[in-house]
């Protein structure tokens, strides 16, 4: 292979989820720099920032695939953007590396998923919460497919467990008027609050719950926690240090994970971005995904998606997320589960962990049912 292989990095560093996008981009950048040091001239990144504009995701992906000749794109945060980009990636026979937790029910041949689907975050989370806090939660979510589908599934699982949903509300990403929802929560007194809000609405909600808990101890985190599946270390400063202390979040990685790999990783991040930088699961996943992609391209000597997919799914790869195994059928990574409790200093104290869980994006392993007995209508 002569010349550098270009890989596209497609993240929005501004807009309602800009904090997350910047962490993704930084994680990708660190991986690119390390690859450049160990294999000079082999991989060349092409960064495009769609600034949270959905049309510009499409333009960006087209430019990466067609103008820059990238076959691999690491990027997109929302499911909306991912779904927008996938048809183009398919058309150009590329590979999209998607590394955010998402709502599942997808397994595209032209995508590698390293962020986790509900059987890797929501299901173990509810397994933990229901026996400890009760089975009468309140559901809130971002007003798009992530919020809708996560809450639909949560409702199904809670009701199967004999519980009841005390309320279900949705807010746009940038909506911060949460008073009516909080008033309803105060009145209905749920066992816990499942928070699938994203961005500023989530930050405003945490602040309002904090204020409620000051008035009414029943809403302190130890009594009625706000629980998320996608809250990141980098967002805790946006919420305000101390505001969300005690609230819970599930993730495949936390800055506080204790392992030799993570200790070394944190040193490298500190020397590149300065001490005190908290590493989020998005940062770590973007880093691990770029590393996995670039190292496979270098090892294979080619960048065609079929070869790369085969290579990355052939064995587990050592990563900061632990041994990273991509399933050859689902194209999803097996991921560990961690439950973190937000601490005063803007991190997560790990409450409990599970070793790697294989992804089951269509939940085929859940609640196995008998095949239907269909009769012939004559």
């Amino acid at each position, binding site marked *: 292979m002569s010349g550098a292989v270009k890989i596209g990095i497609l993240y929005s560093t501004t807009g309602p989820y800009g904090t997350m996008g910047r962490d993704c981009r930084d994680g990708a950048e660190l991986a690119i720099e390390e690859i450049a040091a160990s294999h000079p001239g082999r991989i060349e990144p092409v960064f495009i920032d769609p600034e949270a504009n959905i049309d510009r995701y499409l333009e960006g992906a087209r430019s990466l695939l067609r103008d820059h000749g990238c076959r691999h794109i690491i990027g997109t945060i929302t499911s909306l953007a991912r779904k927008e980009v*996938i048809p183009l990636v398919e058309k150009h026979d590329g590979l999209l590396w998607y590394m955010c937790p998402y709502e599942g029910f997808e397994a595209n*041949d032209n995508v590698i998923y390293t962020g986790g689907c509900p059987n890797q975050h929501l299901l173990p989370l509810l397994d933990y919460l229901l026996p400890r806090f009760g089975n009468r939660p309140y559901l809130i979510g971002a007003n798009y497919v992530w919020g809708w589908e996560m809450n639909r599934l949560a409702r199904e699982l809670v009701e199967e467990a004999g519980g009841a949903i005390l309320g279900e509300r949705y807010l746009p990403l940038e909506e911060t008027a949460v008073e009516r929802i909080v008033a309803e929560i105060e009145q209905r007194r749920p066992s816990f609050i499942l928070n699938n809000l994203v961005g500023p609405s989530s930050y405003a909600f945490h602040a309002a719950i904090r204020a409620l808990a000051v008035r009414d101890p029943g809403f302190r985190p130890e009594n009625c926690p706000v629980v998320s599946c996608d809250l990141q270390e980098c967002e805790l400063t946006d919420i305000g240090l101390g505001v969300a202390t005690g609230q819970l979040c599930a993730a495949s990685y936390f800055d506080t994970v204790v392992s030799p790999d993570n200790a070394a990783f944190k040193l490298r991040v500190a020397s590149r971005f300065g001490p005190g930088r908290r590493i989020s699961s998005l940062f770590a996943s973007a880093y691990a995904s770029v590393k996995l992609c670039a190292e496979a391209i270098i090892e294979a000597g080619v960048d065609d998606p079929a070869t790369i997919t085969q290579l990355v799914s052939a064995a587990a790869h050592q990563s900061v997320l632990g041994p990273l195994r991509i399933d050859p*059928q689902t194209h999803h990574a097996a991921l560990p589960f961690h439950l973190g409790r937000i601490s005063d200093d803007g991190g997560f104290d790990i409450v409990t962990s599970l070793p790697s869980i294989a992804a089951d994006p269509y*939940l085929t392993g859940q609640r196995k049912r008998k095949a*239907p007995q*269909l009769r012939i*209508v004559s």
Partner: protein
Amino acid sequence: MRETPNFTGWRAAILHREDQTTERLVRQLTLFGFDVTVQWQPLDARDLPDIILVDADQGWSGLLPWKDEQAPRPLIALLGSEAPGRVAWAMGQGVAAIIAKPVASSAVYPALVLAVGIHEERRAVADKIAHLEERVRMRPLVHAAVQKIGQACHVNEEQAYGILRNCAMKKRLSMEQIAGSILGGAEPLPEAG
């Protein structure tokens, strides 16, 4: 709200020549938990799978072992053609959903869920129509029984109807069934009140 569909252990048959379309379909269906067979010959009516996907571009009558649009299983058309004749062929077989060719993998799961849902709805509607037809057919019996009760108990038609209805409720039978029993003499005439 409908529960999360689960196709684990279901059998699917793809009636299509083996090519990239079947390759992609087999991959997706296997992910959803199906056991998949691919064939390009008529289905065996005695051993139908749980769901059927058929090439509507090339399909011929006789490929599917049933008459008219009475598909006994959820049926999905794999369709690249826009020719009205091909769409009509698919409708004539009783398809409940379409997957356009070339197949986008994201199109498969929604089509399966839709086809199963439509199929169940059609069955429920057919059962309901059959039930209503039976009741309409039996309606003269109810009328005759009301007349008989009215004469025997010296009550008006409305009261006689009330007696018959109470009797049906007590016996947990339909109005038509109890009317038939009374007229046939298998059931004694109910008392007034």
